[in-house]
């Protein structure tokens, strides 16, 4: 989110929920732009550009396929699953091995603990990822082998990703190169088109710098890179949590968490609290997430759907998976966006759906009781005719 906001601050136009469905070319075969379609709409618009860069990650191969003559973008997607425990069980990362000898980590992350990960060739639908029974059992077995008491801890959710690993034949997933390439498709007769293939999240900035250098060569731009020097939005200084706590009616923990997420912008976020009588009310006690933070995010952080909110402020990421915060968050979203009742309910359901999908593979034990509690909480809404699924 911060990178996107920074890019926008520097003049980039960010369009989320928008799919590239074609690459436009001139008669010489050079790329002249892209054809895009906003999600949920039928119309396709053309956007012209001097250069098109394919940073599709796991979808890079599919995107490159929009230019049939190109070769070189070939991936071997690798699915990776993490399981999330509701507590920060350890301040240290614990490295252990699974039954097949692969390394598995138990890592602290904010106020959770994660175990992972797997690495399996993935041929399925990138838009429909879910942890399988195998993957859950494999990871649990690995960590329970060295920490048997972890069985009594509560798994609340899963995180799934697919690596955009460069293709290699006849090699085990773990042995594949984690390197990256920046392909200039001019060598295939398609000029003004680049693809970024492979790589890891850890090296995103340098990959982006090199890709930008390649593009700037074509555009004849010679300005030096600054992304390794300049702070991301809010990162220019470290605010004082006590000072914030004294200036606004928030707890010290709240101030600290806001600073963690927004840095120097935390003050702007908190100012919004003055607008309403409940501006400093806690919506989701998990983080805690305040009403003013939701409003700030909706106004400034490219929020399209309520289900975008967990990515902004961790709404619904706690053990209750949105049970407590969902309703109020939906009301605030509806106010900010002028939604009618039906749309507001759809947004709430979309939010709960996203959390439910991630929680479902580990919905046993206490977390199943929590899921039943969530069902109970929203009983009055589930049965509404507009929301009952057909069949």
């Amino acid at each position, binding site marked *: 989110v911060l990178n996107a906001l920074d890019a926008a601050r520097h003049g980039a136009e960010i369009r989320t929920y928008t799919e590239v469905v074609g690459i436009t070319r001139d008669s010489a075969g050079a790329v002249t732009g892209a054809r895009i379609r906003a999600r949920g709409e039928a119309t396709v618009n053309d956007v012209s550009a001097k250069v098109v860069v394919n940073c599709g990650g796991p979808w890079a191969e599919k995107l490159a396929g929009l230019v049939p003559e190109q070769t070189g973008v070939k991936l071997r997607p690798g699915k990776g699953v993490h399981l999330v425990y509701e507590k920060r069980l350890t301040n240290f990362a614990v490295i252990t091995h699974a039954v097949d000898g692969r390394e598995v980590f138990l890592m602290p992350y904010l106020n959770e603990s994660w175990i992972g990960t797997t690495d399996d060739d993935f041929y399925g639908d990138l838009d429909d990822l879910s942890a399988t029974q195998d993957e859950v059992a494999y990871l649990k077995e690995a960590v329970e082998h060295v920490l048997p008491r972890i069985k009594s801890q509560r798994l609340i959710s899963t995180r799934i990703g697919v690596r955009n690993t460069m293709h290699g034949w006849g090699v085990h997933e773990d042995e594949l190169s984690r390197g990256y390439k920046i392909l200039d498709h001019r060598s295939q007769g398609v000029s003004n088109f680049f693809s970024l293939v492979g790589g890891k999240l850890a090296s995103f900035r340098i990959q982006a710098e090199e890709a930008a250098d390649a593009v700037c060569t074509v555009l004849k731009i010679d300005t030096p890179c600054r992304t390794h020097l300049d702070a991301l939005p809010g990162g220019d200084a470290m605010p004082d949590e006590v000072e914030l706590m004294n200036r606004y009616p928030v707890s010290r923990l709240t101030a600290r968490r806001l600073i963690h997420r927004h840095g120097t912008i935390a003050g702007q976020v908190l100012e919004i609290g003055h607008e309403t009588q409940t501006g400093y009310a806690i919506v989701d006690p998990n983080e805690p997430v305040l009403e003013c933070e939701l409003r700030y995010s909706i106004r400034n952080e490219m929020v399209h759907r309520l289900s975008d909110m967990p990515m902004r402020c961790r709404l619904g990421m706690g053990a209750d998976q949105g049970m407590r915060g969902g309703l109020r968050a939906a009301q605030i979203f509806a106010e900010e966006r002028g939604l009618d009742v039906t749309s507001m309910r759809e947004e709430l359901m979309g939010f709960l759906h996203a959390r439910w999908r991630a929680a479902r593979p580990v919905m046993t034990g206490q977390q199943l009781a929590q899921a039943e509690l969530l*069902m*109970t909480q*929203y*009983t009055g809404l589930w049965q*509404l*005719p507009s929301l009952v699924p057909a069949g």
Partner: protein
Amino acid sequence: MFDLLVIGGGLAGTIAALEARASGARVALCTRSWGATALSTGALDVAFAPGSEPTQRRSIAGHAHAIANSRARHPYAVLGADRALNAMTDGLERLTPALEAAGLVIPPIDSAKPNGAYVSSLGALVPAATSLMPHAWPVGGGRLGIVQLAGDASFDARHIAKAVTHDARQSWGWDLSCDIIAVRYDGSHGSMAVARGLDDLGAAERLAAELKDRTANVDCLVLPPVLGLVRYREVLAILRAAVKVPVIEALAHLPSVPGVRLQNALDRALREADVTILGEVSSAETHGGRVTAVLSPSGERLMAHYFVLASGRFISGGIVFDTKVREPLFDLPTVSELGLIEKDAPQGVVRADPRESHPLMTAGVDVNRTLQPMSEGRVAFGNLFAAGMVIGGFASRFALCADGVALATGVIAARSALGATKAAA
């Protein structure tokens, strides 16, 4: 040695205990903590089968029959819808004295009538058969005054007004309009805290003064469900004396003040009926196809001629899912509305969209017409019966039936056991 021992102190267990006491049996009830009953919204759900319009005009009995006809494992199908409806009426009757003593009333379920429309704090107009009065009343058309306590984020009157107006038109076919009545409030926030705060009747007087001259344009006032946790009788009386229109509470979401009132009233009903109230049961002893005793965690043996299992579903731990879905006390096989549950992972029994019907959410023990849990096609234990959500084969949210099932199965489980007692004697 008791005649009947009930495991579970929610609505189903309490009704079973009271039914048994009414015929003179010596009854014990074992409870370890509050379960789903204490989360009750303030309304009682008997039968509402969503589907074709205009569902809201169908009678409660009509809904019960529709449910029985479409879901073969639902208790209304297993017991017979009319038998279940009759039993519910008897069950509520048993509760009446204790409820009245607690200043509460649950009007009888008139199954020839349609469900009433209730304002819910979730922001919806929802159907229910009856409710915990004098607080939760159904609404008709007209003009509602929805009260906004200043700074209360858990009850947003504007959203509720919009939703209720919308649902009245869409689902019920009425015109309902709402005014927002904003009042000052400087106490703690959160429904439990507000309710406790209003137990201080001075705070209730101040609220009444705020509302006093604000009701000229409305037909009734709708407040959040916070009008006293313990002294709710007095709080409501104070408000009603000050305003000229009916004062009602919206149905609650979680945490639920009405749920606490109901649970407290049930606890009181048990004490007043001389039911022996005991603590947690953690295992059972069986012999020769009968339950001989249940054991407390310290190993104390509790013996009875007959037992009713009313331990609830996942929330209260009556059904658990660790390595498999199981009933932990008697190790009874579990069923969903699709049949025996044999899966050992959620993926097979939980759907991807929370709105869908999840087999896992219908998990519980399999019962016959006399509510005896079954195992491998036979009655599991000759002297064991089941009531409430521990029974599998249904999910209350698709048929809004949790309280109806609790009442009907509580009564019938007790009667089946006592009938067996009489037969044996």
